[in-house]
């Protein structure tokens, strides 16, 4: 497997890895490493600082923490044994899939264990009659569709990193993708999971069937960013591949027209499989990187995809063309075959990596707004960018208002990375102020946990912590993520302050 390409920041944005400070591991960690070697085999337990360094960060390269111990799990039981050992020793653990997450959800804990799941790559079963595929968590997203393809079925969630990201990571983050608008998110497609709880107990949540008695623990687990346990097996549902897929690329001279076209399509009662939007800077980057042939001189392009029975799609496609033309689309290109469709999507899906062609470094954000506010939000992002004297390339899942501003900066300039993060924060504030969200699909992780208090009231966060306390009373599963303030279970909310507990995820931040 290659390393993640999709969020391949061409350079570490001005922050080098942590120096080997030569600090000796604590006696507790030494004992835990010994125990792990006994239980799962010495070859799966890494403690050599040089080897640990590989796992310092995930797709959010700005934050790096060297883990105390890395476990390369190659069997489900390795995970169970590791979590159990951590629970016994009171040592925190963090699960990691492919490490492509963009919010730092898999950043290790310095005095903890990183459980790497990427060797758990078995397709356990393919059951086309029930439209189910059972996989281990390290299985790559795209492989599921590949396994289902002989039966004319596919796995719908398609994050842009689908060639490298893992199902386990998708479950942790409730990953989305371009086709959420019609098909929903990971949570709508995962039917069951085997989960190792933070105390080492193994539970099965959900299953092959659609409904199960009792609380929907699976629904709470999906998107919990590794803070409630580790999935060791996942049952997903597959969908029938639609009869027809039609994709068009439409160029506009103004963002307002592009956004207006999206609104008109939704208002006409059409639910496209995807509507993606890119602005001029994103188009320029994509062109430079993959020569996808986007319309020249376009200030905004839309990639619109419709799928379903041909008799429905043909009619809708005609309508969409008319709507775009009424909004002064100056160029409309229709993919004639799968290859042309792939090229249209390549420009979009490689957009993150592509901005590496036009900027030494970048920082990507993930906010959501009510879609109808798109034109004013873009103007405001432009204003904020000018104020910060930075360039922002914009890529959106326009159908559902999910923005991915790519903040470009030069990491050679001191303080630029910090400025980029500050601009990203201001854009998220804007999203919240408009009634949106700080994350549509990348998760909160460490990157945005301080923003949680902006989107939610203290009571809301306290209530979420109740779930955490039920699953993980000792706070060992991926501590320091998602919540702005750690809280000890059993205490009444509001008593503790951040200063009471050191943040375990706070290693060295660059």
């Amino acid at each position, binding site marked *: 497997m290659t390393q993640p390409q999709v969020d391949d920041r061409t350079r570490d944005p001005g922050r080098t890895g942590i120096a080997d400070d030569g600090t000796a591991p604590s006696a507790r960690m030494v004992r835990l490493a010994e125990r792990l070697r006994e239980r799962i085999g010495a070859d799966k337990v890494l403690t050599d600082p040089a080897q640990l360094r590989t796992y310092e960060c995930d797709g959010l390269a700005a934050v790096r923490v060297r883990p105390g111990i890395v476990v390369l799990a190659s069997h489900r039981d390795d995970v169970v044994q590791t979590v159990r050992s951590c629970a016994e020793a009171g040592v925190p653990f963090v699960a990691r899939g492919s490490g492509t997450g963009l919010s730092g959800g898999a950043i290790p804990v310095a005095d903890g264990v990183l459980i790497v799941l990427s060797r758990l790559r078995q397709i356990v079963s393919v059951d086309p009659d029930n439209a189910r595929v059972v996989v281990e968590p390290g299985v790559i997203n795209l492989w599921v569709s590949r396994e289902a393809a002989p039966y004319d079925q596919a796995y719908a969630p398609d994050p842009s990193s689908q060639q490298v990201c893992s199902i386990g990571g998708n479950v942790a983050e409730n990953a989305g993708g371009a086709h959420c608008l019609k098909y929903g998110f990971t949570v709508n497609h995962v039917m069951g999971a085997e989960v190792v709880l933070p105390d080492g107990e193994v539970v099965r949540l959900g299953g092959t069937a*659609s*409904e199960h008695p*009792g*609380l929907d*623990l699976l629904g709470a687990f999906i998107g919990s960013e590794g803070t409630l346990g580790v999935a060791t097996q996942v049952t997903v549902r597959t969908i029938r591949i639609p009869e027809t897929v039609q994709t068009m690329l439409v160029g506009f001279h103004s963002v307002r027209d592009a956004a207006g076209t999206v609104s008109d399509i939704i208002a006409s009662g059409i639910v496209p499989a995807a509507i993606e939007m890119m602005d001029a800077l994103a188009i320029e980057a994509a062109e430079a990187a993959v020569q996808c042939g986007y319309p020249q001189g376009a200030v905004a392009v839309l990639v619109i995809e419709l799928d379903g029975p041909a008799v429905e799609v043909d009619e809708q496609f005609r309508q969409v063309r008319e709507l775009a033309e009424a909004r002064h689309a100056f160029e409309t290109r229709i993919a004639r075959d799968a290859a042309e469709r792939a090229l249209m999507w390549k420009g979009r899906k490689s957009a993150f990596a592509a901005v590496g062609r036009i900027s030494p470094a970048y920082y990507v954000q993930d906010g959501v707004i009510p879609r*109808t506010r798109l034109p004013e939000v873009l103007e405001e992002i432009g204003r904020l960018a000018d104020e910060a004297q930075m360039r922002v390339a914009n890529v959106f899942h326009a159908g*559902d208002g999910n923005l991915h501003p790519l903040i470009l900066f030069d990491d050679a300039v001191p303080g630029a990375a910090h400025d980029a993060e500050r601009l990203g924060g201001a854009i998220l504030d804007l999203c919240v102020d408009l009634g949106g969200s700080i994350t549509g699909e990348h998760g909160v992780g460490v990157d945005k946990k301080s923003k*949680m208090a902006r989107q939610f009231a203290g009571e809301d966060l306290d*209530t979420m912590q*109740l779930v955490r306390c039920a699953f993980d009373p000792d706070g060992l599963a991926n501590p320091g993520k998602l919540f702005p303030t750690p809280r000890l279970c059993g205490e009444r909310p509001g008593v503790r302050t951040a200063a009471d507990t050191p943040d375990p995820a706070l290693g060295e931040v660059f």
Partner: protein
Amino acid sequence: MSLDALAEAAGMARAAGPADAVGGCPARFVATPGRADQLSALLRQCATEGLTAVPRGDGTKIDWGQQPTTVDVIVDTARLTGVREHSSADLVVTVGAGTPLRALQATLGQSGQRIALDPGSTEATVGGILATNEAGPLSHTYGAPRDLLVGVQFVRADGTVSRSGGKVVKDVAGYDLGKLLCGSYGTLGVITEATFRLHPLPISRVFLIRSVSTPAEVDELVGEMLDSRLAPTAIEVDLPPPVERPVPRQLDGTGPSGSGTLAVLFEGSALGAQARADAAAELIGGRVCPEEQAPTWWGRYPFGPDDVGLRLSVPVADLPAVIYALGDAAGAPVPVRGAAGIGVVYAALPGDLPVVRVAGVLDAVRRVLLARSGSCEVLTAPEQLRAELDLWGPVPGLELMHRIKEQFDPQRLLSPGRFVGGI
């Protein structure tokens, strides 16, 4: 607690009457808060005095679940109603939990939209539908209520007003507490407000209706539909009891097998829905008809108020085996109806059977289901049966559910005993 104190907290309260009993358990008071802060004050007061509270919408499913151990206060959501915000262009609506779904759909319909939900209890409120995760035929395409809920506001047992999710269709910030509330039978909190994602109303709805005689035949036809690229919106089956004996009161096992119906719904453009239904008819036979001629049983439960109402959920390919097993265990074909395309069907057993017979049927069916990752829940049953029956069968993860309950409601004041494992 005095009625006056309740009325002051909630803004409206009265003494309960016999009609306010919850599954046979009499209630003392009915409080009808008009706002979230009134509900908060009410529950805070209940918590202080150790009073139990059971939320109620229209009461269409008040006899679902186990009988609560006590009901001091019914929290009536009748004044927590109305559309708070409908952003039609953003495909979301926020409504009070006491809003009847039917009224809400009428409002949304004026904008050419709907919540893609069509539960069997037609008078149900939004809050009740969420609390029981009640879904109808549309769940074949759109999933259960939890799949359409994007945000929720609710009040915890201690009076804390909380919110999860938001008002945009895509949002992964924080834990999705809406998932936990859906199907929790009012045991974790009282829902005050919900935000749903919307879908456009289809221009046309066309049904394909085909008679079927055995579960095996149903399986074959459903398989054909699922393998086709015709994208049916819903696939429902109705296997009624034999005509000679409308409900098998005497289970002697000699009744003839029932003759049933498979109905497939196609939604889309006028041309498209018709063409797809016609194509489906060519594949599996049957008669294509417009919406006005939809089967009368479509989206209705096969059980009445005096029956034992079951919900079976199984992997779709196992559906025939489970329907046969149910008939074998009952000693006669049992009326079965529901979403054959996703393996969620409802069944009715006569409510006047002795409890040992019903328990025996449940045991037998659950043994068959265990190996197939399926479940058989008793949604409702006559009072005298209910208390004696295991309504839920085996519940994986039950220990964890108890821990959640302990965190959300340590005093066990919200609908105590109504849910799985006595939660």
